[in-house]
C-alpha cells in the first residue's frame, strides 16, 4: 500500500512537470511522424521485392516505427534524471521513508503513459496513410510498446543514475542504440538481409520484438513470432526493473 501511494506521488509529480513543459513530448512524436511521411512512401514499391515479409508496406513499417518509438522515446529519459540528480531532487527523495522502488517506477510509469499517447497518435496517423489492421492487433501492439518503453526507461534511469553525467551518458546511448537499431530490422525487414547479417540480428532481442509486433499486426496473435516477441519484451521489462531498482537502492547513487 505504502509502495503504491509513493509510486503515485512520484508519478503525479513527474507527470505534472512533463505536462508543464510538453515541448519534449511533442518533439518525441514528431520524429516517428517524419519517418512515416518521409520514409514510408519509399517502402511501398519495395514491398513487392523478393524476400519482403508478408503484408503490405505499412504492416511492416508501422510496427517498426512503434518499436522505435518505444525504444528511442524511453532511452533518453535518463537525461532528465541526471538533471534532477544535479538539482538535488533525487537525494532529497532518498532521505524520505518513501520506497526506493517507487522512486523508479513512478517515473517509469510517467514515461509509459507519454509513450502510449504518442503511440496511439502514430497509429492514428498511419491509418490515414493506409495502415489496415484489426483493432485488437493495434491495441496489442500498443501494449508491447508500453512494455518496451518501461524496460528502456528503467534501463535508462539506472544507467543515468550510475553515470551521473550527460557527457558519459550520451556516448553510451549512441554506442548502444545505433547498432541495436540497425540490427533489429526496424527500418527494413531483416528478411532482406544476407545470411550473416540475419544471424547477427537474431542475437538482438529487439529483432524478435519487431517480428512479434509485425506478426500481431498481421493478425497472427497466437503465432510463434508473436509469443516470442511478447516473451522477449516481458523479459526486457524484468531486466530493466531489476537493474534500475538496484541502482536506485544503492547507497552511493
Amino acid at each position, binding site marked *: 500500500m505504502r509502495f503504491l501511494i509513493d509510486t503515485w*506521488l512520484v508519478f503525479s*509529480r513527474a507527470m505534472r512537470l512533463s505536462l508543464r513543459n510538453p515541448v519534449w513530448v511533442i518533439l518525441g512524436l514528431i520524429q516517428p511522424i517524419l519517418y512515416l511521411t518521409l520514409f514510408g512512401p519509399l517502402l511501398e514499391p519495395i514491398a513487392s521485392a523478393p524476400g519482403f515479409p508478408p503484408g503490405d508496406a505499412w504492416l511492416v513499417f508501422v510496427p517498426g516505427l512503434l518499436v522505435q518509438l518505444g525504444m528511442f522515446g524511453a532511452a533518453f529519459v535518463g537525461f532528465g534524471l541526471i538533471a534532477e540528480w*544535479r538539482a538535488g*531532487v533525487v*537525494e*532529497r527523495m532518498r*532521505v*524520505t*521513508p518513501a520506497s526506493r522502488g517507487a522512486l523508479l517506477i513512478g517515473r517509469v510509469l510517467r514515461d509509459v503513459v507519454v509513450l502510449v499517447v504518442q503511440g496511439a497518435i502514430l497509429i492514428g496517423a498511419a491509418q490515414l496513410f493506409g495502415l489496415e489492421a484489426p483493432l485488437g492487433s493495434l491495441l496489442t501492439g500498443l501494449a508491447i510498446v508500453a512494455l518496451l518503453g518501461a524496460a528502456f526507461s528503467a534501463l535508462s534511469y539506472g544507467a543515468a543514475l550510475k553515470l551521473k553525467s550527460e557527457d558519459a551518458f550520451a556516448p553510451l546511448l549512441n554506442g548502444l542504440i545505433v547498432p541495436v537499431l540497425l540490427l533489429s530490422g526496424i527500418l527494413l525487414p531483416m528478411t532482406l538481409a544476407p545470411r550473416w547479417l540475419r544471424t547477427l540480428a537474431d542475437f538482438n532481442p529487439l529483432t524478435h520484438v519487431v517480428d512479434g509486433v509485425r506478426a500481431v499486426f498481421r493478425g497472427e496473435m497466437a503465432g510463434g513470432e508473436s509469443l516470442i516477441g511478447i516473451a522477449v519484451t516481458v523479459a526486457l521489462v524484468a531486466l530493466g526493473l531489476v537493474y534500475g531498482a538496484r541502482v536506485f537502492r544503492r*547507497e552511493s547513487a
Partner: protein
Amino acid sequence: MIESRGLRRVYKTRKEEVEAVRGVDFTVATGEIVGFLGPNGAGKTTTLRMLTTLLEPTGGEATVAGSDLRLDPVGVRRRIGYVAQGGSTDPEARAGEEIVDHARMYGIAVPAARRNGEALFAQLDLEGLWARQCKTLSGGQRRRLDIAMGLVHEPRLVFLDEPSTGLDPQSRANLWEHIRRLRDELDTTVFLTTHYMDEADLLCDRILVIDDGSIVARGTPEELKRNVAGDSVVLTFEHPESTGAVAMMASRLEGVSPPVVDGSEVRFQVPDGASALPVLLRALVERDLDATGVRVQRPTLDDVFLTMTGRSLRDEPDVSGSTNRAA
C-alpha cells in the same frame, strides 16, 4: 539523539582506497545545536551522508533519532530532516508543489502538508512565492526553500549541510535566528556542517572540529578557544625605548608566550587577557611606563584550527559551489 561509534568510510577509486572518514565517535544530545567545523574535503559531508542513510558506512555504527543506522534506516529517515548543500528542488516545479509533495512522501496528508508548508514559508520570508517556479527564485530564496523542505515534516533532528553557503549576511543572520528558534521553541536537535568560523562560533552550542577524516577537537566554542590559544595582547607606547622593560615585565605573567617587541609595540599571548592586563598595567604605572594604547584580542576558532592542524581555515579556497556530491 545521535550516537556515533567508530563511523568510517572508505572510497575506492580505480587506483587506491581513500579513507574519507577515519572512525569518528561523538554524541549529540536532544536540543543541542552541534556544528561540524572543518575545511572542504575534511569529511563533514561524508559523515553527514552516512548519518542520514544516504551512504553506507564502511565500518562502525550509529544510533540516529532512536534507530540503528544499519538495522533500521527507514526508521531513521522517518524522524530526521536533511538539507543538502546542493539544493533540493526542481527548477521547473513550483515552490509550493515541491514542499507539499515532499511532505506527502512522509505520509502527511495534503491539507496538513499545505498548512505546514505555508507556516514555514511565512517563517522563512518566503511569503508570496508559493506559486513561483523554483528557477525564478533568488539564490537566498531557494536556499530558504531547501530548509523549509527539510523541516516540513517537523523532524526531531535536522541535518543541515553548509546551510548558509551562498547567503548574504542579512539572510545568514535570519537563518541563524530561525535555527535557534527551532531549538528554543520546538526542542529540535540541529546538526550542521560549516566551514565558516563565525557560524560555528555564534550559532553552535558545541563544535566538533574535523580535519582529514578525524575529529581533532571538540567542545563549546568558548572551551575550544580557551584551551587552545590565549588572548593576544598588544601594548603601544609613546617611546620605543620603554618597550624593553615592558617586555621583561610581561614575560613574568603566568602562562605568557615570549613577548615580541615591534617598534613601539609589545605583543604577547596570555591565557586570560582580561585578568592579566590590570595587574600588568598597574605595575607599569608604578614605574612611569604609561601605555598609550591597549588592545586585547580574543582567540578565534581559526586560531583553534591552526593550533590543532597547523593550517588555517582561511587558507582554504571556497569551492563549495562545485562540491562533488559523491564526496
